[in-house]
């Protein structure tokens, strides 16, 4: 396999094309097992106030596999200003320039506010952040984000946490065709085949949280996702056969023992 097997973000190489979230697990131990099993490129974390009444929240780190790159997010931010503030705090706390930029526009759909996302991207890129923006599947917005210096484009496959799988592949394909930075499909994947479909389209990676965390058996799903992302990528590289509108027998008709139609 070529170097194409690896995901490269802002000059750094990752051995996996899967990025996992760390939220919603029933227990931290389950999260740890899922992360060890999936062996993702990196894991996302949220940035929140330290709970001064509950010290147990500080044990989160003990359950993150050592050496796993951390991708802090700005989840829960509804303005560019809040997202920028959160990104700066994340950089200070976690000593990483990576930021998964999320500026949410609506609490019901959790769709991104793309105008604010673009605005925040410009500011954060100027401040030296490696910005991975969560965005809609709008190819024009994707181009603007890339022009603003985003390190990746992360269009949604379906609403965050919906598990619907990719609902509208065509605009994502438009983004894939034009983008010169990695396109990582973020949000909406529900099961392994969804991840494989996204990778078969040519996505550079997939980011997911709920699909693994809320599976009946998160550790088994972590393994399934790991394999699906690899299988999808391999299928993309292999180049699928063209779709046909008719059948085409796989076995030759010559040399049949019994002639057809006797």
């Amino acid at each position, binding site marked *: 396999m070529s170097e194409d097997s690896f995901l490269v973000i802002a000059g750094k190489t990752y051995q996996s094309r899967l990025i996992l979230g760390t939220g919603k697990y029933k227990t931290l131990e389950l999260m740890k097992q899922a992360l060890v099993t999936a062996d993702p490129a990196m894991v*996302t974390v949220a940035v929140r*106030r330290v709970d001064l009444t509950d010290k147990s929240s500080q044990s989160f780190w003990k359950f993150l596999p050592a050496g796993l790159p951390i991708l802090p997010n700005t989840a829960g931010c509804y303005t560019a200003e809040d997202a920028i503030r959160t990104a700066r705090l994340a950089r200070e706390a976690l000593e990483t320039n990576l930021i998964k930029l999320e500026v949410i526009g609506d609490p019901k759909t959790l769709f991104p506010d793309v105008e604010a996302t673009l605005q925040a991207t410009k500011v954060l890129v100027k401040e030296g952040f490696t910005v991975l923006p969560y965005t809609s599947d709008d190819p024009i917005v994707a181009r603007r984000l890339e022009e603003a210096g985003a390190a990746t484009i992360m269009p949604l496959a379906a609403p965050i946490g919906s598990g619907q799988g990719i609902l509208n592949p065509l605009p994502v394909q438009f983004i894939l065709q034009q983008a010169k930075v990695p396109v990582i499909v973020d949000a909406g994947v529900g099961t392994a085949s969804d991840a494989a479909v996204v990778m078969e389209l040519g996505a550079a990676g997939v980011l997911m949280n709920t699909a693994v965390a809320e599976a009946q058996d998160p550790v088994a799903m972590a393994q399934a996702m790991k394999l699906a992302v690899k299988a999808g990528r391999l299928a993309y590289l292999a180049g699928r056969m063209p779709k046909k509108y008719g059948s085409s027998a796989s076995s030759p008709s010559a040399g049949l023992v019994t002639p057809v139609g006797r």
Partner: protein
Amino acid sequence: MIILAPLTNTSAISLPVSGYNLCVKISLNGDLKELAQAVTLQQLLDDLGIPAGRVACEVNLKIIKRPFYGETLLKEGDDVEIIQAIGGG
């Protein structure tokens, strides 16, 4: 302990309180707290039992870099935020 009981009167934070010169009222992660004396950010973290390693601190919306925790004296009315990473997507 350098932290006294949390304040319930929100207006107290900006009012000078005579006779309590050693008391400093701050907002800590959105809650009003009264400190027993003028303390540094480092002393506050120590008192809260928070290791400085994986947190970030803001005083009045300005991030205080880790090496400066020990020299950042908390003043009356300061808005202090201490954040950390938790599970999330």
